[in-house]
């Protein structure tokens, strides 16, 4: 089943075309990576899908329904979650509360009137938060204030928050940006583990080719806002146009 599709998606900033007539489809249970040089329009594409930006023209459909015109939180409620390029967490809240916020949104909806209900009674929310922290390996640090975590753990928490929203599609914007080699390694392990445990469909934007080629089912290459190639890792590796245009002829 097609989970996500964009149809002739265009985004212009003034005269600059950041997204140029992109037709992208993501099937259920597929891991798709989007690669491309700086300024290729990767982040713009992600921001269009999460409704952070309005498209100039074209359509975005999730599970067959158009999501253009929805608010960002409504898109998340439909099942599209995003992990940010930087550790976008709630710094003064504990690690547990960080996960609970996301679990609250997925279990109890975008808004409720439960302002006189004690949090202790939200056992479903606590359960989801605990399971999520367990799967990203932060359960033993649940009571730590998030800002006190080392950078790598903050990024783990960032992914944890995205997972606690219980998404059908997870968009990951450079999950290893700014990480040390060890942190990168453990994040890749985390992503692979999540892929195994949750059977999650995800779209990955990443610079690190090693990661991209090891965890993707399909790779989409963007250049100057448009798709110049797409295929399996092997096809992309052998694609001369990609090597010329994007990788500058470097042997992979």
């Amino acid at each position, binding site marked *: 089943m097609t989970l996500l599709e964009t149809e002739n998606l265009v985004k212009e900033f003034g005269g600059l075309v950041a997204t140029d007539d992109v037709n992208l489809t993501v099937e259920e249970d597929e891991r798709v990576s989007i690669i491309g040089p700086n300024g290729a329009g990767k982040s713009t594409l992600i921001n269009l899908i*999460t409704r952070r930006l309005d498209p100039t023209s074209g359509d975005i459909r999730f599970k067959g329904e158009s999501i253009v015109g929805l*608010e*960002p*939180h409504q898109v*998340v*409620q439909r099942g599209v*979650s*995003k992990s*940010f390029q930087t550790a*976008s*967490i*709630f*710094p*003064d*809240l504990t690690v547990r*509360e960080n996960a*609970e*916020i*996301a679990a*609250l*949104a*997925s279990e*109890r909806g*975008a*808004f*409720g*009137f*439960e*302002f*006189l*209900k*004690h*949090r*202790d009674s*939200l056992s479903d*929310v606590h359960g989801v938060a605990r399971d999520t922290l367990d799967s990203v390996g932060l359960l033993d640090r649940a009571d730590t204030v998030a800002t006190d975590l080392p950078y790598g753990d903050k990024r783990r928490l960032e992914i944890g*928050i*995205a997972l*606690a*929203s219980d998404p059908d599609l997870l968009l990951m914007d450079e999950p290893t940006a700014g990480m040390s080699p060890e942190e990168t390694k453990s994040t890749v392990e985390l992503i692979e583990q999540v892929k195994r445990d949750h059977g999650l469909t995800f779209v990955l934007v990443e610079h690190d080719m090693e990661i991209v080629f090891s965890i993707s089912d399909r790779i989409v290459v963007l250049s100057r806002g448009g798709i110049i190639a797409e295929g399996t890792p092997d096809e992309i590796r052998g694609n001369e146009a990609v090597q010329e245009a994007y990788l500058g002829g470097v042997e992979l």
Partner: protein
Amino acid sequence: MSEKDANPSAKDALVGGSLFGRWEKLRGREGTVVGITAILVAVFPYLFARAPVVSGILQGYQSLATLILIWGIFAIGFDLLLGYTGLLSFGHAAFWGGAAYAAGIVAKNVSGDPIVMVVSGTLFAVLLAWVLGFLSLRRGGIYFSILTLAFAQMFYYMAASPLAFLTNGENGLTGVEVGSFLGVIHLESDIPSVGGMLLGTWLYAFVGVFFVGAVAVAYRILNSPYGMVFRAIRENEQRAEFVGLNVWRYKLMAFIISGAFAGIAGSLFTIHGAYVPLQSLFWTESGDIVVMTVLGGAGSMFGPVLGVGLYLYIENIVSTIQALTIPFTDIVLIRDFGFYWHLLLGLVFVVVVWVVPDGLWGILNRLRELAVEFGSKAAERLRSRSKGGGR
């Protein structure tokens, strides 16, 4: 100190330690918080206005105690918005003054029953907060603050002249007659016997019940999903939206809830004074509540109440001091000292914000932490010493 002496005192320290530990566990419970608040509310006017020695030093009086609780309710609600949700409203005078006028107008034209006054004033504030929140929350940051300020000032000017037939314009709403509570109790009369010694007037008891109720409700809100969502919005609004929360509606709810608290307080203010000054809608009232909240400690439950207490104390009592003398002597340090109360308040504010950004409550918290640290260290030392003594 000999070993013999150390042993019994070590035992005492251990008992004290476990009592302290038990207290630390109880401290966060809702029942404990509300119970302690009720006790403090009950003894406050006695200590402030009537107790020997203490009240002599404080120079407090009954009606100021009532006024502190009224503003305290306002500040608790305001802090839900400023301290917890991170939204700086500069227009809360609209809800405070609006509710005060609504309660006064209802008393003059419909019923002077104090409950009816509070209910109608609060309802008016809630509806107004809904509308103004709906309009102001369209913008974030400084624009939100300016919008709230502008809307509140509109109400001030409307009350000053176009609506003068209702509000009595510049003179303020005079001739408000507050009826008796449940038809029998005159609020301004004294409570007989022990109750009177502690609480003073029925009016204080009436306001006190609302204050304790406000603390209970605010504490519950902070421990509800809302408390967590509010802090999440303060910390990282964009992320809150991107985990799937309708940030806009939660912000509107924070605004309306704080408007409701301001409404209860404003209505009680009318009952307290039997008069509504036009000043109650002026922007300086909005500024006062911001200063009180920050002074006491934004983002803490009780800090803002301390801020209210200090602010009103300086405004009403320190300002009446004729000349500042060195205690127990006649040597005058500053003549017309009370005249400079605004300056004193400003200095206190600047020093507190500089030294302890989390306000008076932050100072108390730091003292408590020091005491805990000191206590546990002392207990440890005694324990190790008593072990040595047992050998």
